[in-house]
Each structure stands twice: as C-alpha cells, then as structure tokens.
C-alpha cells in the first residue's frame, strides 16, 4: 500500500529548508505521493526514514532504464492493468534484430532503417528504440566485430544477446558505457551473467522456462544486488506469451509479488516467419503489457502503425494530447482557398485535417491553442470564443496568405459567429458542419 502524503510528511525533517526545490516539507511530501518528486532531493531525510519510504514507495513494477543519453528509454514502472484507471507510464520499446549470421549489407540496411524511420506526430518524434544484436555463431570475436559496427552506426540503445557469457563479455567490453541490456541470465549461467551485469552496471534479462523458474532466478539475482531486471517468460506461442504478460503484470500489481515485478521482453520475431503477422503480434504486446518487443526487421509499413498505436495506448486518458497551434496548409492552397479554424485537441485536428484532405479541396486550417480541449469543451470553458478567436486570427499571419476574408468556424461554435463578425470587421463568418465527416461535402459545395 502506497503511503499518503500526510504519512510521508510525518517521516520528513520538517525543516522547510526548500533545498529540494519545493518550499515546504508538506508540499514536498504531497509531490512525493503524487509521484512528482524524488526522495533523493531531500538532503536532510534520515537513513531510517529513507529506508521506510523506499520500502513503501517502491513501485510494484521496477522501472528499468536502458541505454544512455537522448536515446535512453525506461520500461516498467506501470501501476495499473487498464489504461482508463491511470495512464500507462513507459511506452513499449521496439527493437530490431541483427545477428552475426547476416551479411554486412543486411546489417547496414537494418541499422540504416532503424536510424531513418522516424515519424512526427503531435509534435512528438516516434521511432524504434533499440537494436538487438544476437550471436548465432557463438564466436566472441565475430560478435565483438558486429557490436562494434552497430555501435558505431547508431546512437540507439543496444541489447546484447547470447547464451554464452564469454560472448556477452566481449560485447560489453565494447559498449558497456552505452548501458546495453544484457540477454540473458538463465538457470544455467545466472551467476556468471549476473556478475557481468554488476561489473558493468547494465540491466539484465532473466529468461526461464516457466514463471516459477523466473521468480526463483530474480530472487537469487536480487540477493546479489542485481535489480535492473527484464523478464523473458520463454514462451514463443501467441496464446501462452499473452497469458504470461497478463499474469506477470497481474501478480506484480494485484498480488504485490515482487519477484515478478519487472518489465518484460517479447519476441514476435521468433513466433512467425510472416513479417506482417509478426507486426500484428507486436501490436498485441503493445496493448497487453510488454516492456520491449523485438522485431526481425523494420519496414515503414509496419513500424508506422506500431508507433502510432503505441502513442495511442500510452496517452494519458486524463490529459488529452494537444497539437501545435498555427496555420496548416492542406493540399497546396492558394490565396483564394477556403480558411477553416478548429481547436488544438489532437484528435480534433487529425479528424478535421483528414476530412479536408479527403475533400481534395486545398484549404488552410487554423489550429488555435485551446489547451488541448475539443471544440465544444473549449467553447464551454471560454477558450474558443469570439474575442480570443479574433485575436488569434489577427496574430496568426493568415491575412498575408489569403485574399478573401471568409472564415469557416465549426458547427458547434455557431453561437460565436455574431461576436466574431463584430470583432473581425470586414470578415464574413461562415458556420461549417458540426461533424467532421460532413466537411468534404461542405467544402465541395462551397467550391461548386
């Protein structure tokens, strides 16, 4: 059971020194409880209180960071089974597989795609996260050469894969400063591989043939001080692998079973030979609880939908995404093209811009900052009303791009049209449809 802010407050020094960046211990305690501050920011907390707080506030699924710098990512740290309860915290990482049995050209091609395939959406850059480098040959020097090559070719996070501790050691020698994920400690090699993880301060995958075996292994590793663990349940059938994901998350969250309280890694690349089926399996794991998914190859047609699905699933249900306000040109508009306005709730933007595109009528779309609220909500909150819209239009610079003075407002904002005509002297305010799906017909009629 997590502590309340008040319970935490009682364990703090109550000096109100402000050294944590928050003016009072009470406010700091409340922020700790809300997950918005770290205990380590307090210089005066006693060791005893620290231990007590760490125990009580340890997340049920341990968050693990893989990689360094701008491409580092975190997995785990989840607190709920269903995303409507609270947001899913750390988006599933996508990795591409590279092996030492691939040709040089193939390796280059895969790393290039990994680097190149990035997508912009709602101002975010979406991309795959890691390269999994696997030793098939078992030859340490061959693996070392490959790791060196990949590490040089990309700044992405790395996963080093082999059953053989010597092979892993060779790889680590080359790239341990990049904090790669080591794959994997098994019953057979746990001790040696755990030592590697400790010496190099790298996270480690535990692979077992059953969840029981895995829990035993994580227990042993915890005792040796290895905590940054990722679980591979070993299942390679779709049904069993899904069930493992659900049981691992459920036992950590609902049963507070610490030995399975770690993020997972899954291998769609080992579940089918069909790249499209593989991507579909990956999409299942994004929704259902995988920390990392390893794909055999990255193609734009599968990576794009996967990263967008991931964005959707990991959106905070209580904080809708906002898109960047401004002027959007759709289909090469000219000075006579229609001008529409909407709010910057990302879903509103996607629907409206998509429908304008469908209409094939080149248009300007003005997206106004309403703090991510939809048209109706923004209007009700007084953020999408005549005087604010008028100010936005005047400042937007749209008047330099068009010759006419006609503005199409959303149907749900019809009541603002009078006010707008008053505020925007010389403009004609036209009330568009209420539903996005009626925009194409509306624009075509306008043109006719």
């Amino acid at each position, binding site marked *: 059971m997590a502590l309340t802010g008040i319970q935490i407050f009682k364990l703090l020094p109550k000096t109100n020194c402000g050294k944590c960046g928050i003016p009072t211990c009470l406010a700091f305690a409340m922020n700790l409880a809300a997950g918005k501050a770290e205990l380590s920011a307090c210089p005066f907390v006693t060791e005893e209180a620290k231990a007590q707080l760490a125990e009580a506030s340890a997340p049920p699924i341990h968050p693990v960071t893989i990689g360094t710098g701008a491409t580092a990512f975190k997995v785990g740290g989840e607190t709920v089974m*269903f*995303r*409507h309860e609270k947001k899913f915290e750390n988006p599933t990482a996508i990795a591409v597989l590279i092996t030492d049995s691939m040709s040089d050209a193939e390796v280059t091609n895969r790393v290039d795609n990994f680097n190149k*395939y*990035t*997508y912009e*959406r709602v101002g975010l850059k979406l991309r795959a996260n890691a390269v999994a480098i696997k030793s098939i040959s078992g030859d340490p020097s061959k693996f070392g050469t490959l790791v060196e090559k990949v590490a040089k070719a990309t700044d992405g996070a790395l996963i080093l894969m082999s059953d053989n501790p010597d092979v892993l050691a060779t790889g680590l020698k080359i790239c341990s400063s990049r904090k790669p994920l080591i794959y994997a400690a098994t019953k057979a090699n746990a001790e040696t591989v755990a030592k590697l993880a400790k010496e190099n301060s790298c996270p480690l995958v535990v692979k077992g043939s059953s*969840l*029981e*075996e895995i*829990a*035993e292994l994580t*227990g042993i590793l915890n005792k040796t001080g290895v905590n940054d663990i990722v679980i591979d349940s070993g299942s390679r*059938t*779709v*049904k069993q692998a*899904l*069930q493992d994901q*659900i*049981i691992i998350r*459920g*036992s950590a*969250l*609902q*049963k507070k*079973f610490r*030995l*399975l309280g770690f993020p997972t890694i899954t291998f769609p690349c080992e579940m089918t030979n069909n790249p*499209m*089926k593989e*991507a*579909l399996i990956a*999409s*299942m794991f994004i*929704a*259902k609880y995988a920390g990392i998914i390893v794909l055999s190859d990255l*193609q*734009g*047609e*599968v*990576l*794009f*939908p*996967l990263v*967008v*699905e991931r*964005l*959707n*699933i990991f*959106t905070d*249900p209580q904080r809708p995404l906002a898109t960047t306000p401004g002027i959007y040109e759709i289909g090469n508009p000219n000075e006579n093209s229609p001008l529409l306005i909407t709010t910057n709730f990302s*879903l509103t933007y*996607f*629907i409206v*811009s*998509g429908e304008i*595109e*469908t209409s094939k009528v080149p248009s300007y779309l003005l997206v106004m900052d309403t703090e991510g609220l939809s048209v109706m909500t923004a209007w009700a909150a007084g953020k999408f009303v005549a005087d604010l819209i008028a100010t936005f239009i005047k400042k937007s610079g749209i008047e330099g791009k068009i010759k006419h003075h006609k503005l199409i407002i959303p149907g749900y904002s019809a009541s603002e049209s009078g006010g707008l005509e008053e505020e925007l002297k010389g403009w004609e305010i036209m009330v568009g449809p209420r539903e996005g799906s*009626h925009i194409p*017909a509306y624009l075509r009629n306008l043109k006719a």
Partner: protein
Amino acid sequence: MAIEIPKTPYSGKVREIKVGKGEKAITVGGENSYPFYLFEGTMTHKPRIAMEILDSPPQEWPQAAIEPFADVINDPVAWAKKCIHTYGAEMIAIQMVSTDPNGTNRGADEAAAVVKKVADAIDVPLIVWGTANHEKDTQVLTRVCEVCQDKRLIIGPVEEKDYKKIAAAAIGYKQTVVASSPIDINLAKQLNILLGNIGVADDMILMDPTVSSIGYGMEYCYSVMERMRMASLTQQDEKLQVPIICNLGKEVWKSKEVHLPDNENNMGNAKNRGIMMEAMSAMAMLLAGGDIIIMRHPEAIKLIKEMIADLTVA
C-alpha cells in the same frame, strides 16, 4: 517458487446472441472472462469477422482496397458472393452509403431492394448499416426490416435519436438491432435500457461503441470497451452484458495515411500499410472486447483470423 496468479473476480457473462438463419447462423458472445484471458474463463464463441461490402460502387477507396473486389465492385450481390466463396466470409456487412442525404440520397424502397437481393443470394448472416442520418436511417432501415422479414438481419446503427421506429420495425420483423452510442459508456447503457423499455428482447441487441482507427482516437473506444467488459463481467451490469460489434474497416480506410503513396514519409508500401493499419486496429478492438469486427481487406482479415485462432487454440 509458487507464483501467486491473480484471479479477476468475475460475476457475470456476456449474453449469447444468435444471428442469421439455418446452418450458417452464428452465435456470438457468451464469454465469462476478459478477452482471451482463457486461463481465467472461457470464450464460448470466438469473435467473428464480418466482411464489408457497399450497396453502390465506392467513391474514395484507395487502390489497395478496391483491387481484391475490382471484378464485382459494381454488383453488391456478386461482391457478397465473392467475399463468401473466395475469401471465406462468415458474415457480410452491407454499408448503405448510397442512401446518404449528403451524397446520392437513394430512396428507401430502392435501397431496401438491393439489401433484399443480397440477403436472398447468401446464406451467411447479413449486417445492414445505415449512414447515421437519423431521418434517413429511419426510412431505410425500417423498410429493410420489412422487406427482409425473418431473415434475422443485424440492423444498425440505432441511436438514441432514432431508435423508436427502427427498433419497432426490428421487433415486428424479427431482426437484431445494433445499439450505437458515441464513445460513451453511460449513453451506451442508457440506450440498451431504452431499447429494453420499448420491448426489444435482450437477445436481439448488439452494441456499437463507435470505433476508430489507430491514430484517430482508437484509444478512446479501446478504453470504453474495456470499461464495458469490466462492468458486464465484474459488476453484474446486466444492461452492458451485450456483445460488441465494431464497424471498423471504413474508419481505417478513410484515414489520411492509407491514401499516401508508396514510401511517402518513410511509411513503406501503401497496400501493406493499409492492411497493417486495419489489422492492428482490429487487434486492439479484439483485445478490448469486440465480438464482431466489420473489416474490409481480405489480407487483413486473414491475418486477424489467424490471430484469433492462435489465441484460442486448445
């Protein structure tokens, strides 16, 4: 090391609903656990995929979606047959796009005659989906109910603003209705109650939570569907123990990204991109609780059916 396997405290199950007639009739629903949580319960009937056809030639489909049906696209009957005989469709969904008042605005009698022809020509269950224009759907769908008496069709969407007349016709001519609500679980529950109040039998209702594609608000319907399942399975909410139908294909194939050409913006092959967006959107709907998914592309459907088989294998 003993693992503590968490058990969801289920207390209810989704109703079983039979649609269609004869040997090819299909029963959906009956699950008593979250979707594919087969270590906790059973899915008495696997989720089904209905193949989508239009009642008139499509206007804005990308090439990839037209291609599999190019030879039948002008004839709804031939189209439906091709779906069944070539692509193994277990259900057909006919979208009544020609009746849209913002488009060709075809009259109810003419539209219903097309449905009748299709219904007479096939033996699998038939879903008839209007344009969500309340007035027009009332005319078209009531007429469809009448001319297809006893075909055991699935008729939708039936919404809060037009349910009375359409549901009355469905009761009279023994068709199943799709209660459709705008991504809102309260309204979904309310509509199910209203339909019950005017006499629609519990086993003649499916519900449509209003779904969307990946990238276009999929997360909203995903969560609403999860909530529906939670309420029906763990909170004994009888009014939500209703199988869920998702009219998904049309949402995916109208998105901006499936219309972009090959390799645009690093998005790879256009055809496969469309197939993947449809299949992944369907996968999400299945995981959230969909019992019937209406889909468009045969290859996306094939992939999804494989996944359903894999996930429910004994």
